[in-house]
């Protein structure tokens, strides 16, 4: 990768340790993706905020970095481990809270916009089409490329952090060429958001960088988010287009049989001890939808709902939050179903959710069994 004189100096440490670290990361990712140069980016969304996932090594790294680094562009961050307002309900140990607060303080020191959300695209105005951003959260990167028409690679926690500090990212992969190399024909009839989640997980496994999906006209927000999140979980693919005539050379079908295979891989329980909704976190539209679906009904089990703080505030103002709470939902912000320390073996053996991404991490990281159902069936079966 060709660096400018100034970038070269930064890599050699002439502009301080923080920039040197950042350019070391960008040099590696640039080399890995055969980039010829760095390009400016206008927004970074960084992952690696939850103490549950980054641990002591991550906490110490960020504490050290924050003494020397400042974010150069607008930088939003992924969810952390808990909702500050209800942390006492969950019996987390003091060490966890102390380390999580240290991580929060480190990001603050570097100048973060404290979003603590995996759906920055539903909280902030999206930049103009074609703008380069650097999104690490995989669902957000795929959403930004596919629906927001922005340009980002499926950044890693460190590559997005390096982009936040330098305002640059290697010009490669999807930034350069995002034409689909594979086309998946959707053959399942009457799909819901779970179907699109299963399709996304399948797509992530078979497609490389960018994929066309044929046989689908329009997707609502819930289906779009489900597709983005599951695609990000299983593979490296960072973009989809709904296109019946993409001209992609490779073609595969997603039929009932393929769908069942993915379902059987991820669904490990007949029912759940509790319900989690919001992986990715729910946006305002989904909160409104759910409140309507729950009119006159209440959950028979504990139901945790994860949403960004600004969305919760709007939902409260508009009355949805109150309606959801009346139906027995517990609303939580700043955190997410995925990789939460709030749902563990201590609390439940199994969880019901409509999220493929949630299912993957609840199973693999939290060790819980998962019962997968679309939202309509969750409401039908779990409320009265």
């Amino acid at each position: 990768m060709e660096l400018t004189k100034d970038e070269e100096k930064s890599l050699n440490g002439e502009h301080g340790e923080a920039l040197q670290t950042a350019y070391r990361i960008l040099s590696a990712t640039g080399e890995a993706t055969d980039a010829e140069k760095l390009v400016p980016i206008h927004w970074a969304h960084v992952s690696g905020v939850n103490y549950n996932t980054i641990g002591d090594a991550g906490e110490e790294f960020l504490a050290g970095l924050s003494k020397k680094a400042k974010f150069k562009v607008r930088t939003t961050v992924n969810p952390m481990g808990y909702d500050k307002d209800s942390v006492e309900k969950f019996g987390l140990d003091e060490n966890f809270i102390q380390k999580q607060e240290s991580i929060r303080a480190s990001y603050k020191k570097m100048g973060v916009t404290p979003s603590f959300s995996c759906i920055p695209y539903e909280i902030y105005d999206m930049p103009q089409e074609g703008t380069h951003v650097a999104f690490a959260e995989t669902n957000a990167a795929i959403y930004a490329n596919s629906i927001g028409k922005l340009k980002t690679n499926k950044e890693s926690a460190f590559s997005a952090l390096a982009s936040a500090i330098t305002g640059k990212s290697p010009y490669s992969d999807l930034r350069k060429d995002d034409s689909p190399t594979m086309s998946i024909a959707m053959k399942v009839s009457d799909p819901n958001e779970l179907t699109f989640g299963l399709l996304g997980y399948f797509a992530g496994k078979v497609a490389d960088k960018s994929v066309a999906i044929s046989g689908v006209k329009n997707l609502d927000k819930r289906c779009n988010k489900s597709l983005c999140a599951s695609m990000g979980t299983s593979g490296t693919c960072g973009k989809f287009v709904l296109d019946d005539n993409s001209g992609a050379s490779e073609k595969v079908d997603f039929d009932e049989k393929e769908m069942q295979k993915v379902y059987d891989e991820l669904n490990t329980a007949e029912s759940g001890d509790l319900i989690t909704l919001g992986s990715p976190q729910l946006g305002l539209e989904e909160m409104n939808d759910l409140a309507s679906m729950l009119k006159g009904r209440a959950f028979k089990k504990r139901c945790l709902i994860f949403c960004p703080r600004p969305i919760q505030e709007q939902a409260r103002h508009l009355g949805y939050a109150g309606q959801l709470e009346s139906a027995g939902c517990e609303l939580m912000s700043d955190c997410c179903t995925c990789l939460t320390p709030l749902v563990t073996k201590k609390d439940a053996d199994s969880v019901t959710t409509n999220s493929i991404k949630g299912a993957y991490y609840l199973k693999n990281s939290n060790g819980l069994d998962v019962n997968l159902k679309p939202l309509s069936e969750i409401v039908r079966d779990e409320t009265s």
Partner: protein
Amino acid sequence: MTLKTIVRGKVSGKVVKSNQPINFLGSVDKKTGEVTDQKHDLFGKKIAGSILVFPNGVGSSVGAYTIYSLKSNNSAPAAMACQKADLTVASGCALANIPLFILSPDEYDSMKDGDEISLG
């Protein structure tokens, strides 16, 4: 022949080889370096000190922190060698200073689990 060096270094060690991509965040214990994903072909194996040969990284972007944590906890592979580099593995190895190589298809195929090899 190694096609490309992403993070430089000279290493010798025993190959631990997988034919499946790795989601470091969901599948590897960052303290012990043990693969915890029951569906993975490396399930139950420890990757610490090995030359970890696998197709590529997948999934969570936070996997880069898992790689960095493995190094801090002395449980990291001595080096990694992949078919193709992804941003999570490349950036994790860069920060943790774990040598990372991209292999040619022939070289990738010829490496067998348990082989003693030198790279770099």
